[in-house]
């Protein structure tokens, strides 16, 4: 009884309320026109006033209600697979509409191919992408040398012997960067010193540089930024690609790519790189090789699986590398002089195997939801000696990361969450001291991204990790972007990073010296030292403009990194290098001002000024970080002719780097002939390249490095007495090689 009563009340309420509104509404039902007795109602049919802003859709029973204002009289009813009907309506009323099935589809689905990369919105992070065209401007030769035309990254020589380029961002060296390959941490641990030279330039598809605190998705280690390298993919790379390179100083490189599409879904690629330098170069006459004798073979095989209909994407990689370098005096022969005290030399032999697998699944009906799994295994072995000092390190690493992407409500609110497991086993010997150890960590992360599609977007991330030597800790990261007016973007970020410093591998340039090595703290968990812990804060502003009809942009950014703890590498005593925990302050302030502008058609200029203030409280007092030019200037000019139909083109590129004065590590306690000045004087370095593209399949390039022929007079201190107490090759502030020309070709099908 009560049920019946309630029903009656509810239905009469509905009846009365609909009566009340029936004055301004047209109501009705949409049915399928057929000869059958029972009529099928059509739910989901569109009902709208022609040329108006008002429409509705029929409900489960095929019923609809639409406002009637009198302004529009023609009511259209349409349904996929049926012929549309137009009714003329002059008053609010109830109608019944029957649609006839049609053989034609009402809506035509436009099939079209999408670009491989589609960047819809500005990201909250300060990210610069170096694409393949930009990479070609610096033709030589590997990842370490790919940043010459980019002002955000500074490239220095790490020492006077190995010819290794070291990169810096925001005034901090590469160990403070997270360097990933397709988002899997790559250059870390034992590969920190030479790892960037183990990725050949032709393998790189693009590089993304994010300044400041990175995303929590890829771990807790990044402090001053992240560099991610995307490699060429078997499906999109050329079927055959050959690149040859040679330079005046006897460095030769050969790259071959072979890619094959096996089935609709599977493709594979084989990438082979070899380089060799057998010519003994000594232009400054100090008796030491200006660049090492080197030999590298590097082979990678990639498999790509793609099934867009079901939403699966997968990559599988294996890579093997063998790299041999010989450093030291010109006439050093390992078989004759090793372990002797007559001729100084060293060898660095690296063997590395790595493999990785990535599996991604996008839910077919939910393009915003996906699951990704990444796993990698690497085994890195470096056997080396520097004069009488031997250094051997083996590093076995396992990394897995599971990421789930989805939304909250709609795509303005996205999130990523997942789990990370990592294992690093080190087998490390410095002369006779053993520092073998293993690291295990597990972590969970959550990152929320908000995007209002107009003015504001931000990403807030948090991860919690537990590590057998670093403890349990929380890593927060935050990025914000705001668009105050047209073509402008204001960004801010902060975040924490934490890492275990691998003091020997990161500073192995100091082995080629007579310095004693001392670790003067003992209580900590990492070589007796505490983990490094830092916060990074940054702000940047980007403004696009049009001047004299041509577009350009201006950007300004400022970042500060504040160390809560740092492993201080103190080499201010020329007889010693000591490692100890920071007591006091250590910070890095960096400021960059950049203008990019199109001077004329196809003619672009990029200029940047950079200022660094990097100070550390050493035990002897606060000092500017050595070998750090506080003022730097960068300029790049690029011109290309119009592309002809067959792809033919000329391309010209010129880059200038100016380094202000650099403070040199203190050598004042050495005898006078083994001293450096307090500061190195400013200098400039110029590079240029010309590329002639004959067709889409063939091009040649010639170029010159260090065109001004600026070199460091004395890169090796105590070169006349390498086994003596003042020998030091670690103080390098300028190029060692003089002006050098190179040439190469690229052939592709």
């Amino acid at each position: 009884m009560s049920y019946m009563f309630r029903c009656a009340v509810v239905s009469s309420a509905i009846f009365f309320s609909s009566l009340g509104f029936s004055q301004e509404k047209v109501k009705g039902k949409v049915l399928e026109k057929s000869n059958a007795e029972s009529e099928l109602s059509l739910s989901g049919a569109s009902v709208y006033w022609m040329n108006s802003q008002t429409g509705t859709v029929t409900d489960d029973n095929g019923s609809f209600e639409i406002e009637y204002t009198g302004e529009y009289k023609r009511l259209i009813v349409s349904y996929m697979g049926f012929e549309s009907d137009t009714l003329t309506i002059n008053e609010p009323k109830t109608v019944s509409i029957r649609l006839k099935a049609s053989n034609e589809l009402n809506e035509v689905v436009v099939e079209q191919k999408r670009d491989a990369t589609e960047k819809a919105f500005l990201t909250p992070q300060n990210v610069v992408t170096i694409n393949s065209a930009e990479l070609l401007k610096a033709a030589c030769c590997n990842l370490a040398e790919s940043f010459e035309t980019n002002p955000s990254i500074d490239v220095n020589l790490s020492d006077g012997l190995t010819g290794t380029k070291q990169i810096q961002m925001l005034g901090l060296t590469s160990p403070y960067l997270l360097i990933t390959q397709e988002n899997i941490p790559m250059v870390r641990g034992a590969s920190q010193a030479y790892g960037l030279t183990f990725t050949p330039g032709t393998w790189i598809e693009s590089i993304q540089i994010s300044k400041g605190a990175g995303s929590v998705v890829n771990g807790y280690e990044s402090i001053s930024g992240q560099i991610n390298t995307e490699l060429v993919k078997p499906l999109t790379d050329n079927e055959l690609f050959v690149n040859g390179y040679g330079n005046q100083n006897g460095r030769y490189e050969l790259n071959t790519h072979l890619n094959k599409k096996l089935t609709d879904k599977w493709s594979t690629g084989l990438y082979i790189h070899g380089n060799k330098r057998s010519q003994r170069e000594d232009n400054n006459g100090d008796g030491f090789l200006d660049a090492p004798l080197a030999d590298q073979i590097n082979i990678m095989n990639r498999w790509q699986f793609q099934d867009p209909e079901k939403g699966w994407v997968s990559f599988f990689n294996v890579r093997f590398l063998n790299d041999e370098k010989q450093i030291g005096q010109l006439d050093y022969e390992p078989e004759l002089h090793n372990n002797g005290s007559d001729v100084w030399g060293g060898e660095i032999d690296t063997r590395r195997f790595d493999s990785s697998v990535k599996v991604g699944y996008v839910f077919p009906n939910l393009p915003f939801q996906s699951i990704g799994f990444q796993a990698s295994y690497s085994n890195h072995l470096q056997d080396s000696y520097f004069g009488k000092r031997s250094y051997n390190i083996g590093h076995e690493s396992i990394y897995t990361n599971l990421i789930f992407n989805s939304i909250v409500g709609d795509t303005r609110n996205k999130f990523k969450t997942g789990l990370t497991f990592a294992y690093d086993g080190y087998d490390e010997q410095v002369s006779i001291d053993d520092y073998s150890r293993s690291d295990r960590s597990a972590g969970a992360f959550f990152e929320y991204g908000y995007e209002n599609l107009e003015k504001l977007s931000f990403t807030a991330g948090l991860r919690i990790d537990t590590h057998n030597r670093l403890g349990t800790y929380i890593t927060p990261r935050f990025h914000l972007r705001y668009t105050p007016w047209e073509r402008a973007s204001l960004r801010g970020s902060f975040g924490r990073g934490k890492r275990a410093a691998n003091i020997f591998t990161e500073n192995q340039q100091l082995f080629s010296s007579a310095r004693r090595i001392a670790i003067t703290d003992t209580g900590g968990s990492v070589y007796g030292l505490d983990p490094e812990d830092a916060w990074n804060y940054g702000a940047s502003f980007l403004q696009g403009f049009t001047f004299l009809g041509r577009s350009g942009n201006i950007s300004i950014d400022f970042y500060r990194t504040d160390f809560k703890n740092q492993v201080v590498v103190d080499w201010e005593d020329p007889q010693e290098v000591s490692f100890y925990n920071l007591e006091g302050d250590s910070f890095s302030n960096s400021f960059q001002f950049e203008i990019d502008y199109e001077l004329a058609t196809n003619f672009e200029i990029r200029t940047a000024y950079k200022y660094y203030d990097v100070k550390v409280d050493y035990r002897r007092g606060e000092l500017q970080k050595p070998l750090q030019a506080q003022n730097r200037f960068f300029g790049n000019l690029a011109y290309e002719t119009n592309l002809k139909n067959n792809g033919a083109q000329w391309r010209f590129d010129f880059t200038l780097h100016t380094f202000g004065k650099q403070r040199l590590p203190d050598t004042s306690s050495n005898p006078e002939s083994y001293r450096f000045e307090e500061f190195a004087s400013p200098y400039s370095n110029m590079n240029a390249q010309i590329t002639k593209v004959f067709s889409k399949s063939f091009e040649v390039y010639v170029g010159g490095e260090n065109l001004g022929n600026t070199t460091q007079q004395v890169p090796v201190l105590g070169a006349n007495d390498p086994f003596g107490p003042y020998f030091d090759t670690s103080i390098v502030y300028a190029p060692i090689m003089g002006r050098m020309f190179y040439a190469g070709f690229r052939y592709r099908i």
Partner: protein
Amino acid sequence: MRKILVVVILALVSQMAVAQEKNKKVEMQVAGKCEMCKARIEKAALGVKGVKYALWDVPSHQLSLVLDERKTNPMQVKMALVEVGHDTKELKATDEAYNSVHPCCQYREDSNDDSGHH
């Protein structure tokens, strides 16, 4: 017994077929021409309660949506689009709304993709 099971399963299946989907994929043509239009269209579509995903493709003018049919329907999205000045197949924006878009987005004159010019 088996018959009952079959009936139950059939009922379930047919129930699923008519039930309003939580994640319904919908595609529609929306007039526009550039990246600015794209941002405006996607913002308007996502502003409709129940729309979870919106991606407007500049060259094809195709708007791909995922929406919760229990909360909204494609016509409500179209009403939101014409309100910010973008015509759809069924509904047309008022001249007032159309004129409110940025001059470079005035697709009614020339709807060619000129996203490269922004």
